[in-house]
């Protein structure tokens, strides 16, 4: 989750929690070893701790500068959602800094109200984050203490075990295997259902799995056969894209005698592992 520690890391820079040594104006004065922070609030907290300052407007401008400086180190290929989380905080900080630099008119315009709200929100979230961070220390301590405790947990004596009512068993071996299938099915953490907003997403990888299974069994199929019985246009598209992807992986070859003619697909892969499937179509993931 944290940015990778290697890139741009300057290991000889003291950890951020250390009391502020004077690192002022010299642009590159504040560098952090990437990977230390688990999130923007973490970074913000560290910056504030470093300057031993309260979260006040006085400190704001400086903390903002350093936060932005940190953000510059986060390369463009950084995980998008991760970087964007930092960006949201950075933009808020910048707004607040700008507002602090500009002379305040008497008139309270909508923009500065919004800015105040943004600041309050940021501070509120920071305070909250700090509260949870602090209390997590209590959790760590308790968990560690309790880990060492020993509770009585011994096997039940045979004579009491015999008192247990006879097990009622109704599953056949086939039922049992079906249950196993269910149990082994990958348990993704379910995502917020957006089905009511969008058409259901179709996974190219899943469709590729179907294509692979069909082609490996048949050896040769034309595309029409490959989408036989499919009514969802999205699935057809996904199967077509997966055919292209499989071609890219040199797993299949195809023939088309004339433009718009029959597309014949042949399974040609000599080595094919499920790992290939796992990475297939990754370009379409975003």
């Amino acid at each position, binding site marked *: 989750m944290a940015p990778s520690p290697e890139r741009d890391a300057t290991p000889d820079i003291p950890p951020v929690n250390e009391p502020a040594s004077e690192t002022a104006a010299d642009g590159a004065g504040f560098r952090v070893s990437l990977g230390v922070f688990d999130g923007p609030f973490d970074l913000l907290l560290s910056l504030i701790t470093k300057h031993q300052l309260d979260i006040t407007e006085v400190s704001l401008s400086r903390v903002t500068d350093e936060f932005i400086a940190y953000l510059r180190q986060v390369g463009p290929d950084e995980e998008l959602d991760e970087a964007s989380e930092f960006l949201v905080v950075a933009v808020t900080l910048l707004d607040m800094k700008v507002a602090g630099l500009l002379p305040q008119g008497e008139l309270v315009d909508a923009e500065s109200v919004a800015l105040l709200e943004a600041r309050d*929100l940021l501070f509120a979230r920071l*305070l909250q984050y700090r509260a949870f961070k602090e*209390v997590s220390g209590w959790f760590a301590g308790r968990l560690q203490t309790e880990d060492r*405790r020993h*509770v*009585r947990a011994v096997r039940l004596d045979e004579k009491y075990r015999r008192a247990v009512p006879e097990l009622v068993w109704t599953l056949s071996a086939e039922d049992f295997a079906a249950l196993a299938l269910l149990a082994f099915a990958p348990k993704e953490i379910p995502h917020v259902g957006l089905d009511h907003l969008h058409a259901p997403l179709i996974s190219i990888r899943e469709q590729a799995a179907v294509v692979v299974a069909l082609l490996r069994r048949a050896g040769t199929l034309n595309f029409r056969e490959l989408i036989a019985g499919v009514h969802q246009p999205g699935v057809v598209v996904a199967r077509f894209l997966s055919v292209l992807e499989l071609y890219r992986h040199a797993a299949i070859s195809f023939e088309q005698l004339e433009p718009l003619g029959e597309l014949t697909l042949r399974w040609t892969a000599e080595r094919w592992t499920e790992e290939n499937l796992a990475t297939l179509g990754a370009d379409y993931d975003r």
Partner: protein
Amino acid sequence: MTADHSAPAFADVARRLEAILLVVDEPQSLVSLATAVAAPVPAVRQAVEGLVDDYDGRGTGPRRGFELREVGGGWRLYVREEHDELVSEFVNAQAPSRLSQAALETLAVIAYKQPVTRSQVASIRAVNVDSVVRTLLARGLITELFTDAETGAINYGTTDALLVNLGINSLDELPHISPLLEDGADGFESENVR
């Protein structure tokens, strides 16, 4: 039923409790203990308190090598803390792997904010928490409480196993952080901050 002779009845309940406590493998509530020993809850409460004192050496006998603790919503026999090291050596216990700082913070947020969705936790921690939530689920420290009918988002909460792991009896025993939280409450409740 034979509640006329208070003293012998009490002793009797305590002895039967000792028998049950020797075989249980989960914390037992007073109600469940009362059912097990066929005695009214107040009598069982009194007997349990008596046993705690007894094992702690506040009765006629010595301070035992074990103790009766209320943890995770029920009562169970534990090795007294001062002997933990001895027992660890004897059973050659492996220290379970520690939770990461990220997992601890996420656990704390869920403990205080439950029922809470993953995206709410993520917005408090300002990072993605999916894999951490998975770890906590596999450890049995949190559980899926219910799915929001409107958004389909799963709400998470903590389990009794967490209480046991923390060595506390209820969520009320968590340290207070409400003053800090109230400060921050307005605004982020509106949840679409991104």
